């Protein structure tokens, strides 16, 4: 069941993405509304993080196209903030929490300039919002998982974007941090921001999100939570991969067959 949004902030048309020629997202096609809390839900290896990376053009796609704010990514980058998985960086890097938040103030246009006092104020404000201002000077390797996540969120807030793409922001954080992060997201939503979150906990998904995307290599459903989040849809999403689709994917990988005829 795929319900389309009016005036979508994200449009994905016929997207196919593969790793080592093995498709991990297959003909995915959906639209997402602005100003909502949107969850991408699916089992491990379903292509959730891949979908976020494709939206930011971090990995090449085999087919299809994406429109953000009804435009090309390169024209609207400044309106989008991407928060990668916490484990994707080396936290032993010699930097303080403040340094990380300040990275949110980098823009290709101002990158040769020093940070202004305004940049520093914004970064400090963002740290305050995620309750990390007390740790501003702390070396990032001394942070707990939840604190690392909040440092990343402060960096994202400092970007002052309209659309936030969050890859597993709740992975490895304790319950109270999860709660404070959700409160932050809700306040961001109040300000009119759109938040797209990769999430894998079914228990909390219905409470957190008002629009849900169910994927397992293929798109199973997309729409308002009340309509999409049904036992039937979940069974389809978590009931395992489609046998034929998986086999075809394996053949493509094995023969290195092109995913689209040129």
């Amino acid at each position, binding site marked *: 069941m795929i319900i389309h949004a009016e005036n979508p902030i994200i449009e994905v048309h016929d997207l196919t993405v593969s790793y080592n020629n093995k498709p991990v997202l297959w003909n995915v096609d959906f639209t997402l509304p602005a100003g909502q809390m949107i969850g991408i839900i699916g089992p491990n290896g379903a292509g959730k993080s891949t979908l976020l990376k494709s939206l930011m053009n971090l990995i090449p796609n085999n087919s299809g196209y994406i429109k953000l704010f009804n435009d090309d990514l390169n024209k609207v980058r400044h309106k989008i903030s991407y928060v990668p998985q916490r484990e*994707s960086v080396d936290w032993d*890097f*010699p930097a303080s929490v403040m340094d990380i938040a300040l990275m949110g103030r980098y823009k290709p246009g101002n990158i040769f300039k020093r940070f202004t006092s305004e940049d520093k104020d914004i970064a400090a404000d963002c740290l305050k919002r995620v309750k990390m201002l007390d740790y501003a000077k702390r070396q990032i390797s001394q942070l707990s998982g939840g604190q690392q996540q909040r440092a990343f969120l402060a960096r994202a807030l400092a970007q002052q974007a309209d659309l936030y793409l969050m890859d597993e922001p709740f992975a490895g954080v304790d319950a109270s941090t999860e709660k404070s992060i959700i409160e932050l997201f809700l306040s961001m939503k109040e300000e009119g921001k759109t938040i797209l979150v990769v999430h894998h906990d079914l228990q909390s998904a219905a409470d957190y999100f008002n629009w849900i995307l169910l994927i397992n290599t293929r798109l199973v459903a997309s729409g308002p939570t009340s309509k999409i989040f049904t036992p039937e849809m979940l069974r389809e999403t978590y009931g395992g991969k489609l046998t034929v689709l998986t086999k075809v994917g394996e053949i493509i990988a094995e023969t290195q067959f092109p995913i689209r005829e040129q």
Partner: protein
Amino acid sequence: MIAFENIIDFLSLKEANVRYVVLGTILLSIASSVIGCFALLRKRALIVDSISHSILPGVCMGFMISGTKDPLFLLGGAMLTGWLSIYFIDIITRYSKIKADTAIGLNLSVFFAVGILLLTIIQNSGNPNQSGLSDFLFGKAATMVESDLYTFGGMALLVISGVVLFYKQFVLVSFDMNFAKTIGLNIKFYEFILSILTVMAVAIGIQTVGVVLMAAMLITPAATARYWTDNLNKMLVIAALIGALSGIAGAFVSYSYENMPTGPWIVIVFSVIAMLSMVFAPKKGIVSKWLRQKRNSHKMMEDNILKAFYRLGEKEGDFYKKRTVEDLMNLRKFERNKLLTGLKWLSAENTIVHINNTYVLSKKGKAIGERIVKIHRLWELYLKIYLRVADDHVHDDAETIEHIITPELELLLEKQLDYPTEDPHHQKIPYSK
């Protein structure tokens, strides 16, 4: 003392030649240490080693083409093959099943083999200009002349300015590549600049340090600096200082002893600095860790003795009675020597008073002992209630935790447990008024 006079001569920089050598070596060391920090943070240390071995065939080809040791030709060749080795490693890991470490190993040995081959051909060619070319293997700083300083020093300055100019971009690319991409930074361009600067930094070391050891010139100062700081700016400065210091030492050795290669000396000097850092650096150093352990066991001993005094007092209803070493040892299995040392420490701190062969708790000592006992019992109760640990299993854990609970945590524990009066063994939890 010849060596002493040499040092004076050398340090006074009276001779123009010495000035060129010293200045050239310092610039080169700073350039390589600074760019090396980024190689280290990007986990490219091995690639640097591959580059340094791969510039040898380039140097030889530069010589073969020009027929002279014109540094421009040699550096041009060095940079070409150095960069090619990065390119090959990239291509091999991207398009084959070979992993990065294997690709680096393959590259390094193939390029170096070709380099040695070419070097032998040149040496057998009878070209009179070739003498000294083999110095490029291990470096000879003293051969640097004025024109070399302009070439090598100029390139070193170029590397340093590159790092200063692109500092923010390099930080972003090194820390979080995906994030850098999403804000629209041209990653490929900056990675290319980083590689070129790295190759340049390696190439300019051929005369002073030599190709074989140049990788160490980039990596060791950076790794050492990381011991001393968690701040990237400071790390760059410390690495540059270590590099410069070792460079000067190497240049001095090369100046004083005609047939001594410079590279190994530079490497030895900063390896010594690296080892000293491992031992003495604050927080991360071995000595610092050892001192911390020492402090911990010191504190545990003191706490345990005061606790023993308190418990004896509790049992007999008199906290300020004179106690002998035997009294204490009957209560708790202390090692006699350690107990005596501990008692000395405590007397010095006025928590107990030593009278003849007996010891008496002071008011201050009683308060400390009481606090330890209180925390011990609170913790036992906490384990029982919150962790559901059985009554007979709570003691051992509390024996350790009693030493590390801070006053803030102590308050929190009291509050959370609602000021209990008894521990799981029905012993009274003391509260000071």
